[in-house]
């Protein structure tokens, strides 16, 4: 009995760990969209200051991509869909 309980507890804990795994939302460099547009979208969607939005936009521009959000899979995917609808290149991946 005790062993069975331990097993189910372990299983629940493992499930929680999986569910809590953070997901990263990546913004990819886009050679055609104006920087001003990217900065504006980041400000609007995430509530970043102009300085923070510009910094992230430049990181994506210079490094090819940047993590702009880390959180639950659902939240990251919701933001990603919103970025796509703004014409920006973004994707979600499990935090390594």
């Amino acid at each position: 009995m005790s062993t069975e309980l331990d097993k189910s507890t372990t299983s629940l804990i493992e499930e929680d760990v999986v569910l809590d795994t953070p997901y990263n939302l990546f913004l990819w460099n886009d050679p055609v969209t104006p920087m001003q547009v990217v900065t504006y979208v980041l400000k609007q969607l995430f509530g970043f200051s102009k300085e923070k939005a510009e910094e992230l936009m430049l990181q994506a521009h210079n490094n090819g991509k940047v993590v702009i959000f880390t959180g639950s899979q659902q939240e990251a995917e919701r933001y990603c869909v919103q970025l796509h609808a703004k014409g920006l290149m973004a994707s979600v991946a499990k935090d390594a």
Partner: protein
Amino acid sequence: MRNVEIFTLLPGGQVRLRAQGQLVEFVCEQADVVEHVLHTPSDPSFYRLCGPVNVEVSEDDVFTRLEREMTIEALCARVRTSAKAETLSREDLEAWLSVLSMALGVLAAKLGIVDDESRDDAPMGAEAYFTASNVISCCVVEALEALDEA
């Protein structure tokens, strides 16, 4: 009232389009391009518009796909209607920005533009298109920022 390039800001969070004609035509064409690609999975730029959200899966779930389709269709419809309207709201401008950026991305994907280097190799006509689209997009952003300040 304050003038922002192609728009005139009006009281009450509205703007009026100062330039008409070709601009309206251009913006409506972008909506047509986006909607065409949205409904043409065989188009080479379909993935740019409708690629999966999660890189670990080959395609999004049905709910996400439907949500995306409905969102994009609504944006395109709003652009077509507002381009011919007397005044535009903040939501109309947001739709313009979305559609212009999506159309830009679609064309870039068609031309295989993935970085600054490949953009430099784009045909002259494409560069003229990028410039026109970028100018309008930046005017839209300026108008939206001006509305925020007002």
